[in-house]
């Protein structure tokens, strides 16, 4: 389990992570979602004790990373596949890592076998393709057979086969009861792997919820209505709590309400409807909307982060 409380990191005047609180639980894949520069890598570096938080705290099973004895046995991580010496062999890289945490040499061979690098292990890591480097990074993460795993954009730049392999691996690790925390800037990617999502934008928490709920909410957020009595409908909707209305050609697009709710509002006013259709926009589009300025503004305005799922979803309506 990973718990972040009020985690904040400033680099000079840049606020990379801003009062971020979330929990990553065992037995499932938790996606860490946010656009480029949202603060995902920074958060992961703080989890591993590499960067010192400006404020707040992050604990691994109740302890600070720096207090873990032989930490690779508790938590394995792949933050960047390029963090290897290009003129050192893959085997030597894993060998020093294993030695630092008192792991037997045989374990190096096991993980090399596991990621399919056994036959090229004596080649220099600098000569590896991106996919091979990624596999080496994963071998390093698995070295101590840890209960917690961190992956920072592990599928970046991989071919479909590599992506498939990593997805399967993450699902398997979670099925074994481990805690798997994996970052991505693609919602569609996370929708396929993650059970739970921690979504951030500009260093702040936007949502922590089940992945399915988030996707449903993100993609089904808008309802399009057409009516000959458009003005009456607009007025009625505008006074409904949680609803936001904008014009689109000769129709209204309502966010914050389900199509059921829009239909009920219309019926209550005796307004005739010519169209009532939930908009299944693209996931990425919805995600961009949620993580961009609008949400930032919204979150500040209400003084609360937008919470989805559980009780939070109700609060939105």
């Amino acid at each position, binding site marked *: 389990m990973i718990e972040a409380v009020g985690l904040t990191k400033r680099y000079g005047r840049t606020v990379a992570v801003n009062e971020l609180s979330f929990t990553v639980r065992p037995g499932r894949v938790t996606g860490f979602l946010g656009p480029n520069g949202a603060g995902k890598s920074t958060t992961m*570096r703080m989890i591993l*004790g590499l960067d010192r938080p400006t404020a707040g705290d992050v604990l691994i099973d109740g302890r600070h990373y720096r207090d*873990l004895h032989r930490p690779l046995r508790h938590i394995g991580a792949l933050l960047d596949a390029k*963090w290897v010496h290009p*003129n050192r062999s893959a085997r030597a890289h894993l060998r020093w890592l294993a030695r*630092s*945490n008192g792991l037997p040499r045989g374990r190096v061979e096991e993980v090399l076998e596991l990621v399919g690098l056994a036959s090229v292990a004596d080649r220099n890591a600098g000569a590896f393709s991106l996919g091979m480097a990624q596999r080496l990074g994963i071998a390093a993460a698995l070295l101590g057979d840890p209960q917690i795993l961190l992956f920072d954009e592990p599928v970046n730049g991989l071919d479909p086969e590599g992506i498939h392999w990593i997805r399967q691996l993450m699902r398997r690790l979670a099925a074994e009861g481990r805690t798997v925390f994996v970052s991505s800037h693609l919602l569609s990617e996370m929708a396929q792997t993650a059970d739970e999502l921690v979504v951030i934008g500009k260093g702040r928490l936007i949502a922590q919820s089940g992945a399915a709920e988030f996707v449903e909410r993100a993609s089904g957020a808008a309802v399009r209505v057409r009516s000959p009595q458009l003005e009456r409908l607009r007025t009625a909707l505008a006074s409904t709590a949680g609803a936001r209305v904008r014009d689109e050609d000769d129709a209204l697009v309502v966010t914050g309400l389900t199509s059921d709710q829009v239909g009920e509002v219309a019926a209550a006013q005796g307004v005739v409807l010519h169209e009532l259709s939930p908009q299944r926009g693209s996931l990425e589009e919805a995600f961009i909307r949620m993580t961009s300025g609008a949400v930032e503004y919204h979150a500040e305005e209400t003084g609360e982060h937008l919470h989805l799922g559980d009780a939070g979803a109700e609060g939105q309506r």
Partner: protein
Amino acid sequence: MNLLAVERIKLFSTRSPWWSMLAALVLMLGMSTLFAAVLEPGALEVAATQVGYDLALMVVMVMATLAVTTEYRFNTIKVSFQATPRRSAVLLAKTVVVAVLAGLLGEIAAFGSWGLARLVRPEADLRIDTAAEWRQVAGVGLVWALGAVLAVAVGALLRQTAGAVTLLLVYALLVESLVGLIPKVGQNIRRWLPFTHANHFVRGGGQPAEGGQENALSLPFGPWGSLAYFAGVVLVILVLALVTVNRRDA
């Protein structure tokens, strides 16, 4: 113990340390042999067999600097601190491994140079029979070890190869001698500079008749005092590096 093994594996699993060590050895043996071959018979004494030690030390310091700065360059320092969050322990283990290596290499280079000089000039009196002569030969390893510690510390402070190597070489090869040229105060400052003392430890003779530059400088300590002073300066910079490495983001 594990951490020493880790640093040993890291150092020897890439080629460049081997090349640096070979270069240092060849440089020192070559210079000493050449010098022994051309020197007047009367002038060739034990101290003179170690002429190349300070230049070869620069190569050793480059090797020691690289042991740290390549970790920063390729970000393996982050992996190191991830594996061992006690950063001081990581840096100290690296320091010990590099220093021991530099020390051993220094002894091999020193006695090798002396041996080659004897081969080249069998007629010269090159027996090591005074304490001062032992120091002039065996002392090379000690200075190399301390120089390596200094280089590791500077490498950890600056984190990048070009900066650290330039600083170390320009300082050791140029700055200390140039300071001596400043009118009036120059010599007074120079009396307290670390490499002047390292040199005094290795070259400083028991007999004032030698009349080298260092003797003319009238240093505050004897040879062993100079070594202690050099070690003290190195230690201060090492402590500075440890504090800095623990404070900042990896």
